[in-house]
């Protein structure tokens, strides 16, 4: 069973397995530190449930649900 970032609950931590998507979008995510093996934590959801806020490499980043769906992760306990 593969999880994406959208399967996380606030407070959960995970490790990135794979990024799908292409071109500029994918590169932007990688440039921001969302590389394979990076650890990230889901900090919170926006008031209307979308976008979400994650913490990666010591800073906060927000993404839309549609974008989070392209990040495959393994959930860490």
């Amino acid at each position, binding site marked *: 069973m593969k999880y994406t970032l959208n399967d996380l609950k606030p407070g959960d931590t995970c490790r990135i397995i794979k990024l799908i998507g292409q071109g500029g979008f994918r590169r932007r995510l990688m440039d921001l530190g969302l590389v394979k093996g990076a650890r990230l934590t889901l900090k919170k959801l926006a008031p209307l449930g979308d*976008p979400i806020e994650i913490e990666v490499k010591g800073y906060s980043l927000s993404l839309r649900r549609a974008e989070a769906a392209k990040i495959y992760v393994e959930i860490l306990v």
Partner: protein
Amino acid sequence: MADRKYKKITIALAGNPNSGKTTTFNSLTGARQKVANYPGVTVEKKEGRLTYKDYKIKVVDLPGTYSLTAYSIDELIARNFILNKRPQLVVDVMDAANLERHLYLAVQFIELEIPMIITLNMIDTAKAKGFDINVEQLSKLMGIPIIPTAAKTKKGLPELLEQIVDTAEHPKKYKKPQISYGEELDEEIDKLQTIMIDDNELSRKFPIRWLAIKLLENDSQVIKHIKNTAQQPDVILDTAEKSRRHIKSIFGEDAETILVDRRYGFVEGAYHEAVKSTPQERVDISEVIDRILTHRALSLPIFFTLMWMVYNLAFAVTEGPTRWLEGGVSFLGHIVGGALPVGFYRSLIVDGIIGGVGNVLVLLPPILVLFLAIAILEDSGYMSRVAFIMDRIMHHIGLHGKSVIPMLMGFGCAVPAIMATRTLASKRDRIATMLIIPFMSCGAKLPVYAVFITAFFKSSAAGNVLFSIYILGILMAAIVAKIFQHTLFTGESTPFVMELPPYRLPTAKGLLIHMWQRSRLYIKKAGKVILLASVVLWFMSNISLAPKSEQSLPLKPADAQMQASLKLKNSLAGYLGRGLAPFLKPIGLGDWRVGVALFSGFVAKEVVISTMATLYSLEDVGEDAAPLREAIAKDPFFTPLRAYTLMVFVLLYLPCMSTIAIMRKETGGWTWPAFTMVYTTAIAWIVSFAVYHGGSLFL
């Protein structure tokens, strides 16, 4: 003063967004800054100068970026500046509390083979957060001199200047070894380098190793350069293609991904060796603020209250200064008018030119305050939270979370609102937002509503009528944005991925510089067009087209107002307005006076009222229009339905000339402003038609 020989140094200031790059720039150069756009794009180019010892240093502030790819215009501008303008060195500003991501950018400057200096900015905050950075070791690992700074207090700046001079004078001393990306990748990079190294044209223009790396990344711009300038482009591109395939077969991922991984790998290694972090027990203030400002239930009410306050402040605080400016302009007109003989030229100078200057100036006080407010929202870090909490709604209509700020500013004045779209990074989002801003009921439309509502509606209903007009504007903006999303702006919407920086207290200096630069742009660029349009419109309403006999109709001398009305009727504007009447008939507004008034509304929306007053042969009534109210209430032409239709039309039609002028400036051409003029008027007509005929059925 003695004549001194100065040496010139050009440096580029680079860094991630939110690294304190702008603060460093302000601290280095003070107010001696020049702001322009990079040619052909709306990315701001800031330059500043300073003198240090025997050196005149020019500082170019590059756009804040996370990387140097060909995917984003900001990143392209930054790297092309390094490649084409060849500054002596790059100062890479880093947030000391967020080093990993910042060092990743530095690696890409290393690839460009340009001498570098790193500044560890906000070093005190980083210490307080529990980061213990071994600067000397980090510098050795990166092969780059590193200066800890606190740009706000100018700490570390003297050391930075000393280092800039030393690096510029002895670039060889600071030549650093290139980074290894692992055996397989290095091999392919070497291979590509070998076939390019003898191409003089290429090696004169670009660092060859960098070209090789970019070829592996399949960088569209570099491929284009190779095609255009290389002696044997096919050989190079074929080899690159083979290398990419080879790497993919080894790693199962494309070379671009592997390269990013390796850069981060290198950075991580250096970071963990040189930085020790001990998590602090004490509560992070930024976190606490954020918990409130993005709270599930509270965030939206807090946001709307804040915006309501900004908006009220902008217009309440500036009411006085605006009136003084208006008074000053009319006083000037009075003085100049007194000195000139009555006639054509006096009217041209006083009403046309001085009046035109007035049109530019009266907008200035609220614009200053609104720009200050935007600067605070941006510099404090709240702007990205606004995008975070509003994105769900805005994304629904094809816009970005950040679009909400310019839209709300549109309720004050469309001019600063359109300039506020600069906070949006993508051009598509910027233009999509600009196009719907004119549907927000701006401050100048309010006097029009006020006159017609008080003339035709009971005071108990007045509030609801006014509210319905505002809501209609928002509704139309949403509908139109949705339509544009599926017609004009198809294709993938720009990703939302956005950093949420820690909250920071903005510096007064930074805010003032920010505010002043935007305002100056408004005066300089939009001012010219507004002034010109004012004069043209003055000609149109003062050149009489009527035959002489009609002009010299025997008028009672006391009937000056009657004369003014007749004069306007017979002017070019009058003819055009009357020509509009047939088009306005289907929407129930087929009266020539309405036509002339709507035409004159292009100057500014409140002019609709003063023109009507002239046409009803009333004295200049200004905005508090009791006599006009009575006159139109008595006019058999107007019914409440017609009055309401007119308000709808004024809400939606042709934006004022100031809006068009700033739109031209911000989009860099006439295409979008011309489109806006046509489409808003078409929508105004269609909606008014529906309101008028729909209303006729029920009333």
